[in-house]
């Protein structure tokens, strides 16, 4: 324990000549307690600010989630206002393209999830075993069609 005991009330630290004369409502705190209190105050403020920034980031980039959340609210004038405000906000985010970040990431992940072993080992479709010949056939058919169309057009004119 620390020997020095400053007197504190509502954050104000003072010293009395007569250390025994504590008025009601005053408390004696050790320096260690004051240090803990200050550290806690700073840490709480830091986390609070970090949470506020997190909420802002989620409101901007996940406005669709906000709409989904408020649609679960019961019916009432306040709830209706919240829903309208949320939808307007989401509309704005969509208009500026910010809401697309979420869907872009989801599309990329969905492609990753659906990728098969063939996609991994034979990334270039032209190099897929067994598909070279069929690919060539497909290509040939397209060209034949083009030629056929050209012939028909020619013959029709």
């Amino acid at each position, binding site marked *: 324990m620390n020997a020095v005991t400053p007197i504190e009330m509502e954050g104000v630290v003072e010293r009395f000549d007569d250390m025994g004369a504590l008025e009601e409502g005053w408390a004696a705190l050790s320096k260690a*307690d004051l240090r*803990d209190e200050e*550290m*806690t105050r700073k*840490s*709480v*403020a*830091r*986390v*609070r*600010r*970090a*949470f*506020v*920034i*997190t*909420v*802002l*980031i*989620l409101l901007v*980039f*996940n406005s669709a*989630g906000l709409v989904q*959340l408020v649609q679960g609210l019961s019916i009432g004038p306040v709830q209706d206002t919240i829903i309208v405000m949320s939808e307007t906000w989401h509309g704005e985010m969509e208009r500026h393209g910010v809401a697309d*970040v*979420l869907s872009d*990431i*989801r599309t990329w*992940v969905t492609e*990753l*999830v*659906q*990728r*098969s*072993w063939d*996609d*991994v080992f034979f990334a270039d479709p032209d190099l897929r075993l067994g598909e070279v010949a069929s690919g060539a056939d497909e290509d040939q058919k397209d060209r034949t069609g083009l030629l056929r169309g050209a012939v028909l057009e020619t013959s029709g004119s």
Partner: protein
Amino acid sequence: MLFPTFEFGIFFLIVFVVSWELRRTVDLRKLFLLAASYTFYGWWDWRFVGLLVVSSLANYLFGRALGGLERDGLRRTIVGLAVIANLSVLGFFKYYGFFLESLDDILITLGLERDLPFLEVILPVGVSFFTFQGISYIVDVYRRDVAAQRSAVDICLYISFFPQLVAGPIVRAAHFLPQLEDKPTLTPAMVGLGITLVLSGLIKKMVIANYLATELVDPVFFDPSVLGAVDLLIGVYGYAIQIYCDFSGYSDIAIGLAALLGYKFNANFNQPYRSASLREFWLRWHISLSSWLRDYLYIPLGGSRKGEWGTYRNLFLTMFLGGLWHGAAWTFVFWGTFHGAMLGVERYVSRRFASLAPPVEGEPQVVSRISDAASWVVGVIFTFHMVCFAWIFFRAESFGLAFDYLIGFGDWSTPVQHATPFLVMLIAGALVFHFTPPSLGRWIGEGMKWLPSPALGPAFGAAVFFIWAVAPEGVAPFIYFQF
């Protein structure tokens, strides 16, 4: 209210802000946290808040009665009554249907069919966890490891504190109650650790566990008879990772949230799949439960003080009851029994091996190092596969499906249907994580410790958003909620 939801996010923001505003009035803060915990629990079903309150108050009164008595016989009677009362609550809600169904099957087999009083009993979320915490408090008071609490609020908060209420970790009274008496503090280290654990828990649960569950484990265990060995093998590896990420993810979030509210919980998992023996596995897996079973069941049964065969019996009984604790089904009983039996076999074999091949004096250091490393690698692989074998029975809906699963390992010709590169990558990544330095999380926490809020906020916000975007849509409940 599930952790990875917007509802919980809003709830926690309110609890965080208000509870720290009340930090100078410790009693008021505890009352507020208790009210918040009951709100959290009541979100599922308000009716069971009454059960939670009654259970907590009963344990408080039993504790007070024990604290005021000196006569050993009377103390033993009271602790016995308290344990019976706690186990009766658990037994009724969790095992009533199971025992009656089992009894019905036996009577039908014997040709003595009867109309039994079946009831539709709803299982209250987290009943196993808060019952075990109640027993822990009573036994600790009986053993005089902790003083009987004068404050009912402290006991109610200890049993109902929302981060650990529904799926642990099981917190010990001797560890948590003294923290309630002190003025709460929030250090930069607790902030760093709390944020890191919350993020790690979200990744484990929302990304890894949820993808493995929906894309691999659920379809593979639905009908294993139509799948080949590769799918089944990757499926059970997937389940091993899914249950680890699901449960340790929950524990990480719980420990992280408690740290952000100024309370310290002990770790519940410690890279379990790097274990080179089943004994080591149980020192690393669900640590709060295995230490609870050790202190309140294995040691009271006699532990290793009752001779060689007594030790095997106690190991077996402890794991048998540990299996039954997990769920009211014979597959869980088999799972626990298998672990109990194999722990006994492992103990027997390692003792015989040590007596047959004692360490050789003067053996070159290089040789002993190579042999240690080789036996460690073999031990890790063998233990992992033993654990996976038991997981098949833990996950399968019935013994029939579990046997279909095992039979399927003989079929290596059926093409792979579910084991995609993405899922194999998730499993491999999670397994590799088990061999990273054990202090990795603490190092990341140390890195976050001094980040100012203009850096911490965007980093945390971007991480939460990215996890949300990458995770499959919808929120699956945690596996351990059913226990």
